[in-house]
C-alpha cells in the first residue's frame, strides 16, 4: 500500500476512541530494545522482578477475600498451590489446563505487542472450535479429519478476527469495543448452532455430535489427559511465535508500530497491514485453542466450551510482557491458579470468582509494576 493509505491510518486512528500510543512504561517497558544477548541481562532480570512483585501483591490483595470469609489465607494458598503443582497428576492437569491458555495468550502477545487490544479471543476460540469440529464430524472417520479440522479452526478464528481488524484498519473503529461485542455474537451463535441445526441427536444437553475417533488427539502420557495439543503448543506454537517475534521483520514491525506508529509510518512500515495481520494471527491461535479443547478433552462442542480462556489470555500476555517465554511461564502460573482454585473451593468451601478476581488484580499490578519498581529502587530495595 502506498503513502496515501498509510496516511489514512493515522487520521482514521485518531477519531472515535482509538487509544493513543501509551508511554512505554505502561505495559511493555523494554519492548523497544532488541532482544538482549544474555539470558539474564539487567533489563530482563528487572522484568522478572516486576512480574514476581505483581504476582506477590495480587496474592496479598486476594487474601482479603479469604480473610472476609474466615479462612486462613496461608492455608488457602497451600491448598491452591498443592492443587496446582502438588503431585504428578495435579501437575499434568495443570499442563492440560495450560494448553488453551498458552495458545490464546501467545496470539494476544502478538496483538498487544503492536498495541492492538484484541479482547475477542473468547469468541474467536468458539468459532474456531465449532468450525473445526464440524469439519471433522462432516469428514467422519478419515485420516483427513484432523488436518482439515485444524485448517478450518485456524481459518475460523482468523475470519472472526478479520471483521474487527477490517473495521479498525478501514474505518478506524476502536477494536476493543468491536472484538468484545463479537464475543457475545460468537458464543450465542455457537450456542444456537449446537442447540438447533447441529445438535447431537443423542445427548441430553445442547451440544454438537461427537467428533470421529480419527480427529481425537492421541494421549501422550497414558492414564492422563495429556494430549497431543499440549505438545503442539509447547513444541510448535511457542517456538514459531518466538521466531516470528524475535527473528523476522514482521516481529520488528510489530514492535515499532506498538511503540511509535508515527515513526513506523515514516519508516515505511505499512501500519494498517501490520495491525491487520497481528489481529488475525491472534485469532488463528485462539481458534486452535478452542479446537484442541474439543479434540483433546471434550470431544464435542458444548456451550460451556471455555470458562473464559480468552480473557485469561489478556492477563497472561500482559504478565508475560508480551514475550513468548514470559507468556509460557505466566500461562503455567495462571493454569495453576485455575486448578488450584478448584481445590481451594473443595477443601475450604470457598465460592467461585477467585480466578477472575486474581486476574483483575494481577493486571492492575502488572500495569503499575513500573511505578512500584521505581519506588522500591528509590528505597534501595533493588539496585537501580
Amino acid at each position, binding site marked *: 500500500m502506498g503513502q496515501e493509505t498509510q496516511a489514512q491510518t493515522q487520521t482514521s486512528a485518531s477519531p*472515535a476512541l482509538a487509544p493513543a500510543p501509551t508511554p512505554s512504561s505502561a505495559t511493555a517497558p523494554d519492548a523497544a530494545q532488541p532482544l538482549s544477548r544474555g539470558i539474564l541481562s539487567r533489563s530482563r532480570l528487572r522484568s522478572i522482578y516486576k512480574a514476581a512483585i505483581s504476582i506477590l501483591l495480587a496474592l496479598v490483595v486476594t487474601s482479603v477475600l479469604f480473610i472476609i470469609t474466615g479462612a486462613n489465607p496461608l492455608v488457602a494458598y497451600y491448598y491452591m498451590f498443592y492443587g496446582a503443582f502438588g503431585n504428578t497428576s495435579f501437575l499434568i492437569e495443570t499442563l492440560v489446563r495450560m494448553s488453551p491458555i498458552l495458545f490464546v495468550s501467545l496470539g494476544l502477545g502478538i496483538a498487544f505487542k503492536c498495541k492492538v487490544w484484541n479482547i475477542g479471543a473468547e469468541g474467536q476460540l468458539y468459532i474456531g472450535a465449532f468450525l473445526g469440529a464440524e469439519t471433522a464430524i462432516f469428514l467422519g472417520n478419515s485420516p483427513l479429519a484432523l488436518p482439515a479440522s485444524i485448517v478450518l479452526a485456524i481459518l475460523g478464528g482468523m475470519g472472526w478476527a478479520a471483521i474487527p481488524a477490517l473495521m479498525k484498519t478501514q474505518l478506524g473503529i476502536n477494536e476493543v469495543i468491536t472484538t468484545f461485542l463479537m464475543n457475545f*455474537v460468537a458464543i450465542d451463535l455457537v*450456542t444456537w448452532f449446537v442447540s438447533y441445526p447441529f445438535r447431537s441427536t443423542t445427548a441430553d444437553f445442547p451440544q454438537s455430535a461427537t467428533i470421529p475417533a480419527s480427529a481425537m488427539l492421541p494421549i501422550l502420557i497414558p492414564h492422563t489427559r495429556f494430549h497431543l495439543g499440549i505438545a503442539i503448543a509447547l513444541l510448535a506454537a511457542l517456538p514459531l511465535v518466538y521466531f516470528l517475534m524475535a527473528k523476522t521483520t514482521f516481529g520488528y514491525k510489530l514492535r515499532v508500530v506498538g511503540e511509535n506508529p508515527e515513526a513506523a509510518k515514516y519508516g515505511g512500515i505499512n501500519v494498517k497491514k501490520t495491525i491487520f495481520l497481528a489481529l488475525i494471527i491472534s485469532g488463528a491461535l485462539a481458534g486452535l485453542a478452542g479446537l484442541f479443547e474439543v479434540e483433546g478433552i471434550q470431544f464435542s462442542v458444548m456451550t460451556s466450551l471455555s470458562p473464559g480462556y480468552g480473557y485469561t489470555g489478556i492477563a497472561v500476555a500482559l504478565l508475560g510482557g508480551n514475550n513468548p517465554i514470559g507468556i509460557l511461564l505466566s500461562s503455567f502460573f495462571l493454569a495453576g491458579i485455575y486448578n488450584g482454585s478448584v481445590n481451594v473451593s473443595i477443601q475450604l468451601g470457598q465460592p467461585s470468582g477467585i480466578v477472575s478476581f486474581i486476574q483483575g488484580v494481577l493486571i*492492575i499490578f502488572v500495569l*503499575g509494576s513500573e511505578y512500584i519498581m521505581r519506588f522500591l529502587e528509590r528505597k534501595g530495595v533493588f539496585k537501580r
Partner: protein
Amino acid sequence: MTGLTIAIAFAASCVTFACPLLLASLGETVVERGGILNLGIEGAMLIGAFSGFLGAYFTGVLWVGLLTAMIGGIASVLLFGVLVVRFNLDQVVSGLAINLLASGVALYFLRVAFPGGGYPHLNFLFQPFAVPLLSQIPVVGPIVFNQPGFFYLAIVLVPIVFYLIYRTTFGLRLRSVGEDPRIASYVGINVSRIRYTSLVLEGALVGLAGAFVTLSQFNTFDTRLTTGLGFIAVSIVILGRWNPAGALIGSLIFGSTEALSFWGTAFLTGPQASSLAQLLTILPYVTTLVALVVGGRMSKGPSALGAPYAKE
C-alpha cells in the same frame, strides 16, 4: 391481547430497556468529554446492580438499595479513576482489569451473601409510576408515562447533562481538558480535579443503571444480567457524537433491539419459534456492530480521549 395492546406493551418495553443504557451512556459522555475512556463501566454497572440488590435485600428498603448501588458504582469508577488519573496507567487495559475484578467480586460475594446456592429474589420492586393525566393519553401515555421513576430521571438528566457540558464553567473546563489537558493545565485548570468530578458523576449514574436492572427490571441478581450493557453504552456514546441528545436516541434504538430479543418468544410462532427466538439474542450486539460500521467512522471524539496525561 389485541395487536394494538401488544404493540403498545412492546413499545413500552423498548423504552424500559433503553433506561439503563441512557443512564450509563450519559455518565460515559461526561467522562469521555474530559478525555477519559472508561471501559470499566461494564464492571461498574455489574457492581452497581449487585450492591444495589444486596442493599435492598438485607435492609428490605428499596431506597437503601438505590444508595448502595450508587456507592458501589462510584467506588468502582473511582478505583478506575485512581489508576488512570493518579497513576496514568493505560485506560483500555485498566478498564478491562476493573471488569474482571468486578465479575470476580460479584461471583464471590454472591455466594458469601447467599451460601445456600440458587438465586435470591426480592419481593418488592420499583414499580412503574403512572404520571397523572399524561398516562391517560392514548398510545403515548402507556408507552412513555407509565415507566419506573428511573426513566423520568434519565429523561430529565438529558437536558441537565447537556447544560452541564455546554453552558457551565465546569463543562467548559471539562471540554478543554478533553481536548488538550496540557494546555488546560497551563491556563490553570486542575485537570485531576475535573476528571475525578466527572468520574464520580459517572459512577453515580452507572450505579443507578445497575440498580435499575436489579431493583426494577428484574427482581433477582445474576452476574449475566448486565453483561454487554456497558460496552453497548460506550458504543452509544460514539454513535451519539458525545452529545446527551445523541445518547438518548442511541439508547432508544439499542433498547428496542434488546426488547426485541427479549420478546422474541412472544412474537414468534410455528415450529421454528424457539430456535429463532434464541437466535435473536445476538440482535443487540449485531446491531451495535453494524451501527458502528455505518456511523462510527465519521464520529470525531474529544482529541485527548484515551490518551495518557502525566502531570508535569
